[in-house]
């Protein structure tokens, strides 16, 4: 794990290092005034150590990162780290709302599909999932916005209505979790809670949609494999009712590959928040990254990439731990 962290920082740093001293310098300078004198550029390159060998620069940069200094963010108009910490709760909220229905529905559908292999319901679910898997998330998001906002006007983009936004920015609003729906409840403003939910529906659908087709397919194939196993026959030979055979004996085994294969990929799909937050004009980490890319705000991009990678590494660790919880064969080692 520390090895992976070092590797990831090295890759990310070498990408920014590849920009070369001149372009990097541009990201340090906040006004053209600084470059007025003829030798200013060279002086500044020296000052920031941009002409030093890569390993030295890397260690310096890593040292800064460890102290929490990720550089200045043009997008956030403050340090990269505070800018990201400010945005993260919004993305977290979105993700939590998206993942719960996905896990429940996708696994349920995957099991149903496998149990009725090649029957009509299976074919239907498979085609549905295949089409879902083929429809890019940003196209789906745009279509949702087109239908439910532009045409029907049901679900607006953004986070909350303008008047609620003002309330949430005011001094008497208690920022506890920074997640709008939860803070609304904690502040006793049920109307704001409902409004925040209303703004969440489309983005949650888009993000959830990204995961469910994938999870469903893995659940189905894993379940099909398990249903062919001898111990399933053993369970039936014991007189275990069919629904318990499926829900208990088969499902627990089928969840092992679902966890390992899908767990990692699902975290990888977190990148989807980039599209979702851009399309539905929400504040969050994904949007932060998208804006930084458009503005060529290098330090924000690098910060965002580090942030997403960190989440991914921690997520994979969680997956490994839960793997051991489900599969007794792992526990021993």
């Amino acid at each position, binding site marked *: 794990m520390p090895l992976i962290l070092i590797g990831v920082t090295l890759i990310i740093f070498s990408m920014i290092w590849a920009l070369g001293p001149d372009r990097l310098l541009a990201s340090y300078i906040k006004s053209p005034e600084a470059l007025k004198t003829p030798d200013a550029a060279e002086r500044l390159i020296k000052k920031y150590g941009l002409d030093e060998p890569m390993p030295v620069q890397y260690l310096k940069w890593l040292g800064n990162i460890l102290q929490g200094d990720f550089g200045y963010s043009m997008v956030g108009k403050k340090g990269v780290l505070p800018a990201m910490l400010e945005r993260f709760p919004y993305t977290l909220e979105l993700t939590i709302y998206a993942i719960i229905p996905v896990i429940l529905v996708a696994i349920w559908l995957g099991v149903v599909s496998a149990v009725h292999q090649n029957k009509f319901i299976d074919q239907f679910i498979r085609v549905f999932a295949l089409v879902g898997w083929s429809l890019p998330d940003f196209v789906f998001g745009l279509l949702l916005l087109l239908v439910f906002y532009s045409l029907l006007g049901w679900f607006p*983009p953004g986070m909350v209505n303008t008047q609620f936004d003002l309330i949430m920015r005011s001094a008497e609003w208690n920022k506890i979790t920074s997640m709008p729906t939860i803070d609304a409840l904690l502040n006793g403003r049920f109307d704001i809670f409902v409004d925040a939910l209303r703004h969440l529906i489309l983005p949650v659908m888009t993000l959830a949609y990204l995961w469910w087709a994938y999870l469903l397919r893995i659940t189905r194939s894993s379940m099909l494999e398990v249903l062919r196993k001898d111990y399933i026959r053993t369970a039936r030979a014991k007189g275990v009712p069919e629904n318990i055979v499926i829900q208990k004996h088969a499902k627990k085994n089928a969840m092992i590959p679902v966890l390992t294969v899908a767990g990692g990929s699902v975290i990888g799909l977190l990148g989807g928040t980039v599209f979702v937050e851009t399309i539905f004009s929400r504040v969050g980490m994904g949007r932060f990254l998208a804006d930084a890319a458009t503005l060529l705000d290098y330090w924000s991009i690098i910060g965002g990439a580090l942030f997403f990678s960190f989440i991914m590494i921690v997520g994979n660790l969680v997956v490994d731990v839960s793997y051991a919880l489900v599969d007794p064969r792992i526990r021993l080692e």
Partner: protein
Amino acid sequence: MAVKRKSEFRKIMKKYWKNGTAVLGTCLLVFFIIVAVFAPQIAGVNEMGNNYQIPRVSWSSKPIAPTSEHPFGVIGGRDIFYGVVWGTRTAFRLGLIITGFSALIGVAIGSISAYFGGWVDEILMRIVDIFLSIPFLVAAMVMTTILGKGLDKVIIALIIFGWMSTARLIRGNILQAREEQYVLAAKALGQKDWKIIMKHILPNTIFPVVVQMSMRIGSYVITAAGLSFLGVGAEPGYADWGTILSYSRNWMTMLNESWFAIVFPGTAMVLFVLAWNLVGDALRDIFDPRMRS
């Protein structure tokens, strides 16, 4: 033996054509190939320069709904029909180049890793782990932001971050195949290692890679389009489905006036990806030994 192989092949083909979704996928694919090949005849060419640049038909940025002259409408002054048709070529180029090169790198690294084993394997697999720890889309975004705009940069970025799963797949398959009887037999007969790999192991491990490749073409095209949509992919005006979509970012609150800029390139994208997924799905069913018995 040769006869048996042939009849086996025929059996597989028969099975393939019996599979309804596989036939649908193949038909869709053939349709896209035709559109790509005959793009100049279908949508015309850009007389002002590069064919992959959508010609300007209007200097107003306002979207124009479909007319008989511009059947898919106009956005940002560009003819969407032209962009969608020529975008098919872009999609094939993107998909095939990225998949081809990343599979090549993956096969090379995976085979080296499995062949040498030991510390070489250890190091290469750690590198794979490290590359897999950066979310694909995020990595591609950083890469294209730094390399600058342009389709070639997108291709480079996606290749650099796209080879890992192939490497893992081929490594696992080779390690498994190495334990098979016929390989042990070849070893006992004193055949050279690389010969065994070329003759016995690779042919038996390459099918899963082919299946994986066919499934990935679609997802690479989606990712590339996504980058264009975010404005870090192809240049504005390039005949690319994602680029056309990105124009609607300027009309986000009035999508009902620019629906055609989403629906047409979106449909093309969905069908293109669906075609590859259907074909890949069918291939997997056929090559999966457990399904064959």
